[in-house]
């Protein structure tokens, strides 16, 4: 009996055998990094798009179909995808991509996470991420760590590609070195300038850029700004010389426009991730666009 079943399994096996590793990521930024490192040895698809708010993706069952045959699932972690990824993973019939599975790579696991709460947290503080701030990919230092982690993970799943992954990772980091030299030159004259982001999603980016946040449009994460809060922000913006209000382009810009009108700051609609604008085609192109838009606005 066993033998028959084994035989049946053997017959089914070739359907699954492929040259390229099937990599599925939760966001387009992670997909871009996986593509950089994996090259032609991987086939990458993202469950969400850069124009989407990654907190609120629909758990459309057709996404579970993509996970079914995934050789690797790459997620951001820190509960960013808590509202939609778990049911998809549970529907996928792919045990190895469960949170502790051998084919799961959680990017946050290799990043030095900011804003990890030290004391008690509850939802009176808004819809915050109790494990720490998950919006780290716009910081190239974090992206490097994630790319390195991806190279290690891909190597562990596909040892034959070790050399390729190492070479492609080195290429990517070399290009980032050159980019960063350029980007540092953009940041140098605007160091210490103040901005107001909409959601608490630019803390890593501001830290990298040497900019400072003077507050958030949202009084608490996920909570809409009441007029009282906006009035307060106008005061803060005027007093501290805030130059720009940073808003991901999937958010409503109405409240940002109000603060801008009364304070003289500029509203910058930013791509939230790779693919967030037509220009942001790759990781480098995305960060490049962020640098141009934000440094231009605070100059």
């Amino acid at each position, binding site marked *: 009996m066993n033998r028959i079943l084994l035989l049946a399994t053997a017959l089914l096996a070739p359907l699954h055998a492929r040259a390229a590793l099937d990599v599925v990521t939760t966001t387009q930024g992670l997909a871009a990094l996986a593509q950089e490192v994996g090259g032609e040895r991987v086939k990458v698809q993202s469950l969400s798009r850069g124009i989407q708010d990654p907190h*609120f993706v*629909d758990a459309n069952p057709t996404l579970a179909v993509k996970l*079914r045959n995934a050789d690797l699932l790459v997620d951001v972690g820190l509960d960013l995808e808590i*509202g939609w990824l778990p049911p998809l993973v*549970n529907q996928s019939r792919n045990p190895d991509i469960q949170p502790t*599975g051998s084919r799961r790579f959680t990017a946050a696991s290799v990043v030095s996470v900011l804003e990890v709460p030290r004391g008690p947290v509850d*939802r009176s503080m808004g*819809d915050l991420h109790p494990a720490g701030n998950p919006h780290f990919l716009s910081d190239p230092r974090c992206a490097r760590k994630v790319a390195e982690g991806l190279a290690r993970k891909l190597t562990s*799943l596909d040892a034959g590609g070790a050399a390729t992954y190492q070479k492609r990772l080195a290429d990517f980091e070399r290009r980032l070195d050159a980019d960063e030299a350029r980007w540092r030159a953009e940041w140098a004259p605007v160091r210490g300038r103040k901005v107001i982001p909409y959601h608490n999603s630019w803390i890593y980016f501001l830290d990298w850029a040497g900019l400072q946040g003077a507050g958030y449009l949202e009084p608490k994460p996920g*909570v809409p700004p009441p007029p009282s809060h906006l009035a307060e922000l106008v005061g803060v913006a005027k007093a501290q010389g805030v130059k720009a209000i940073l808003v991901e382009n999937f958010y409503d810009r109405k409240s940002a426009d109000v603060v801008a009108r009364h304070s003289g700051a500029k509203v910058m609609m930013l791509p939230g991730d790779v693919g967030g604008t037509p220009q942001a085609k790759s990781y480098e192109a995305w960060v490049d666009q962020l640098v141009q838009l934000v440094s231009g606005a605070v100059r």
Partner: protein
Amino acid sequence: MNRFTLAALAAAALAFGAPAAAQEAAAAPGAAPQQTPEEKKKLEEQIAKELGVSPAAPALPPAEGAPPGITAPGVPEQTPGGAPAPPQAVQGQVGGNPFARLMMLPDISAIGDFAGVYDSRDTGNESPRSGPVSAPHQLTPVFQELELGIQSVIDPYARADIFISFEPSGVSVEEAYMTTLALPFGLQARAGKFYSPFGRLNQQHPHVWDFVDAPLALDRLVSASQLGGPGVDVAWLAPLPWFAEFHLFGQTTTPAFEDKEQRTLGGRVLQYFDVGDAAALGVGLSAARIEEPVFGSWRDLGGADVHLKLRPPWTRSYLVLQGEAFVRRLTAPSVPDQTDWGGYAQALWRDGPYFAYGARYDFAPAFQNGRIGIVQVDGTEHRLSAIASWFPSEFQKVRLQGAWDRLPGGQNGLELILQLEFVIGAHGAHPF
């Protein structure tokens, strides 16, 4: 024996299904550098034979050491063999982790539903239903339900979801079931007590519904407390480029207006398609055959459901069009068959994060609660409902629902329900 077969099968599936598995082994220190998948499979068979068929759990091969330089210290990554490194491992913390017990807790949540209800007539008797009702012209506060959810993985092979419902009528286990995570061939099984995979609304907890109450047809043709009970459900996800899932379930259930549990056998086909960039279409067909108390009598249920969600990816506003049709046929020896229809169609417009508006039409056979209990009467009841919902945050909602109800005799009734709902704790995300 079955278990062993399954274990061997799963082990084999793992070896074949994962072409990279052999390469993992190749990368491990001490392993032959050039082990091919064929060699690994042969070795695995050999080992299985030596062990008298793998007694080990199916999905987890023994841990192998991480290849040097592959896993950074302190990085909670898997070793290639599958043995997880402790997550967020911090080395050398004095006294160990003081939160160890907390970290093992399952997700615990509570959802409370309360309502104020106004009915213009004696709805409880003239139009019996599961939703909240009031005496004629008496605005009445109603405690609907407190749901306690306890959810967690059990081990690497399965998870458990438990929902305990506290209602005015008492405490009941709404659902408590185990779901497998590691069956091969696209199979997934649930065992325990659960709502039957029959139609769309029947499987959802009431707090997930877009309206405060169930359509009359679900109450009267399927079950007033939603069809469900102890049993087993096996679902196969077909290897197709779209989502196509086939369910077979065997349960004991309590169908509409029965008080005894009856043996039930059923099936469901659910398919989902992406329609362009901004729409998802789900269509389902369900059937169930339920034993009746009288020998040789049957209750057959059929259902068809459609769910279309239109949402451009960059926004949180969306439109959902949804409808279900239910048919119930009663067959008994020496009595003519009786077939009844019902259904609903609804539209819901979610206007950004904070508001939603919906309209629903539903119809069902008329029932009345008289001296001899709840009985079906001639004719069809039609109802139109409208709802406005406000979501101050992701964790509470306030909804106002108005319904205009028309009984077969031409009597009309108005019903207004103002409902408050909150959720605390970690409540698992709901399926689409």
